[in-house]
């Protein structure tokens, strides 16, 4: 049997059979799913906790039907005894009340006061402030003799439609979703490089410190040992990732059954014509269906395919470097920290470029970052989320992939030479300069 395969199998099985692997692989997606389900639950759920009475002695709210909005509700009262309202506040029937005095001038600058029993939270204050201002604004516009249509046109926020050269419509939500997907996948690769890179490094350190390295290299070439370890751990990562994808997709399909509102809203969306209603519905439902629609424009098989390519490419590129560092470390695991710096720097640098690239996928920094093999696995994900060729032209994608394969071969070649010397070297911690020399000594 091929020795590299034997080693990879041991590395794979010894990790997959651990309890922690099962825990992180199954529990993590459940945790993430539960987290998002909670967020969605709270954003979908209409809270009816806040009821504000408006004692309208100036009769400014007469022609306005109080809107049934999600969380803040206004009850307009022509007149009411303030003592009665105070009691209602104490009995928790209403949150508070606003008294509009009889001489209140709607076009003036007077402020009104809201009375409540205890202090209201900052976010809720902002909501009440905005809703009440909206009410007054509409009333003021009516006072200026504007009709409903004119008011809508003033309040229309969507005056620009973003279109690409090819004439394709490009909705804000789609850009937002691309941003989210790009950021998420780039960040995921960033995390993966660190988690699995460190795993490789620890594995190499374990072999060196347990003094098993020399036993093994008397039967297997050091290069095979290193590659076996890297492929074994890479397989762990891939299996873990696939389980996650399957679990998350499965759970996402369950989502509409748990929250029927979401399903309805997404199916309603295509029937709504014009930006007006879309904007109006966005106001009401927090843009959820817009996001769902944006998600549907993303080419997920393509993203997942390229993700796996960049995940593997980036992992292979960095894993051998992590292995080289692991081979250089002696007794003290702390030594790894300083040796790791030249490896973690480009990863962090890539992360910084990615946060820029996800906004401007075609900026020169993004193009450079997505070509350079040390940063491309992270940066390219940010561009790919915007699609081909909007985010990245096909030739750039192919060039980047080629460079990544070349880069991975180069780092593996270099790291293998350092590794070969390092695993048999005991004694003081080497410097990077010494490790560089190792790469060029004869075996």
């Amino acid at each position, binding site marked *: 049997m091929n020795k590299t395969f*034997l*080693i990879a199998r*041991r590395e794979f099985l*010894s990790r997959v059979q651990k309890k922690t692997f099962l825990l992180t692989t199954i529990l993590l997606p459940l945790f993430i799913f539960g987290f998002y389900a909670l967020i969605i639950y709270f954003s979908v759920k209409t809270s009816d906790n806040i009821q504000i009475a408006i004692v309208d002695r100036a009769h400014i709210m007469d022609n306005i039907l109080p809107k049934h909005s999600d969380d803040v509700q206004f009850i307009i009262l022509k007149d009411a005894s303030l003592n009665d309202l105070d009691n209602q506040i104490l009995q928790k029937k209403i949150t508070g009340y606003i008294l509009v005095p009889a001489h209140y001038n709607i076009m003036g600058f007077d402020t009104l006061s809201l009375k409540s029993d205890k202090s209201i939270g900052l976010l809720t204050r902002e909501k009440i402030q905005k809703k009440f201002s909206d009410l007054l604004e509409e009333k003021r516009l009516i006072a200026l003799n504007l009709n409903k249509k004119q008011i809508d046109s003033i309040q229309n926020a969507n005056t620009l439609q973003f279109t690409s050269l090819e004439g394709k419509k490009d909705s804000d939500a789609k850009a937002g979703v691309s941003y989210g997907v790009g950021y998420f996948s780039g960040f995921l690769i960033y995390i993966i490089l660190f988690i699995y890179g460190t795993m490789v490094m620890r594995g190499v350190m374990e072999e060196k410190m347990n*003094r098993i390295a020399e*036993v*093994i290299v*008397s*039967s297997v070439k050091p290069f095979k040992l290193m590659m076996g370890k890297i492929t074994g751990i890479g397989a762990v990562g891939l299996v873990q990732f696939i389980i996650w994808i399957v679990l998350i997709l499965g759970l996402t399909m369950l989502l509409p059954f748990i929250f029927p509102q979401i399903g309805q809203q997404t199916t309603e969306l295509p029937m709504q014509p014009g930006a007006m209603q879309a904007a109006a519905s966005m106001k009401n439902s927090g843009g959820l269906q817009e996001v769902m629609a944006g998600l549907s424009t993303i080419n997920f098989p393509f993203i997942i395919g390229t993700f796996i390519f960049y995940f593997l490419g980036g992992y292979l590129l960095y894993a051998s470097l992590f292995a080289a560092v692991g081979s250089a470390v002696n007794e003290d695991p702390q030594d790894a920290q300083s040796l790791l710096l030249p490896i973690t720097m480009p990863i962090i640098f890539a992360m910084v470029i990615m946060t820029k690239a996800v906004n401007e996928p075609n900026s020169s920094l993004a193009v450079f970052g997505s070509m350079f093999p040390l940063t491309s696995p992270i940066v390219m994900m940010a561009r790919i989320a915007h699609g081909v060729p909007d985010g990245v032209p096909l030739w750039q994608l192919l060039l980047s992939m080629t460079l990544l394969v070349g880069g991975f071969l180069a780092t593996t070649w270099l790291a293998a030479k350092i590794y070969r010397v390092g695993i*048999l070297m005991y004694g003081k911690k080497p410097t990077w300069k010494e490790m560089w020399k190792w790469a060029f000594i004869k075996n």
Partner: protein
Amino acid sequence: MFIPINHEPNINYYNVMNAILQLHHLKKYYATQKAVDDISFEIEAGSIFGLLGPNGAGKTTLLRMITGIIYPDEGEITFDGKPFNPLDDTVKIGYMPEERGLYKKMKIGEQALYLAQLKGLSRAEALSKIRFWFKKLEMESWWNKKVEDLSKGMSQKLQFVTTVLHEPKLIILDEPFSGLDPVNANLIKDEIYRLAQQGSTVIFSTHRMEQVEEICNHIVLVNLGKKILDGKVQDIKQQFKQHTFNIAFDTAPASLIHPSFEVVHQKGNDFTLIIHSGFRSNDVLQFFIAQNVNVVAFNEILPSLNDIFIQLVESTHSAARSFETVQ
């Protein structure tokens, strides 16, 4: 103490019949030192060979070249009559390095199986051999234990088994008895004899000279990357003998002054003498017999390998390198 003598490396044993391993002018230079500097010797098949030297002498570098872990800068290795090919020949070698260990979290049985498979054995072959050895060394009940649960001696035993499991032609053991209690050390020693009898060649590297004297047929001593001694243990002892004798009498002799010898040590009626060159042991005996005392013991004291080792290492370099002396 011995008077340092100028000793030329002995290369009389260059044409051993039936050599399993021949080293021809091996050199390995590192940036700061000559780890191995032009070393040649041969090892007879089926022998137990001792490779000795103080720390940093180049033993490990030499062993790593023999096991194909590193390549010599210059020189050739002939293994079993053919130029050494690390890819094919490592299967025929079992190497237990001084710096050795096992996967702590792995089960004993799986670990032995893994290491045997890495040596190229099939799963079935490996399993039957592991069962054989585990039974032989009373390790059967360990199969599902983890290495971290074993004592140091137990894991040394396991390490030995994994080294010899694939029936290598050449077994290289670097300090094989470290961490073993006398009972287990004897167990392993017996196995080493048995393996040698069955035709395996054993290279035995250690600082423990009394073990070398007991076990090895042939030794090579290296220091500072160079070979400084090569020969059969008995021949070397003869070669380094200082004509020192022990003589004991029932009563004290009347005179101890004679041109043929000089007394270096006295304890009661027990004397240690050095016989001067040009005289024979019988000259001494005749001198005492003439005094009418009864000689109750007379024997030659051969130097121990430890003495030879210290003497040679110190004479090849002004400052002796650190090494373990026999307690």
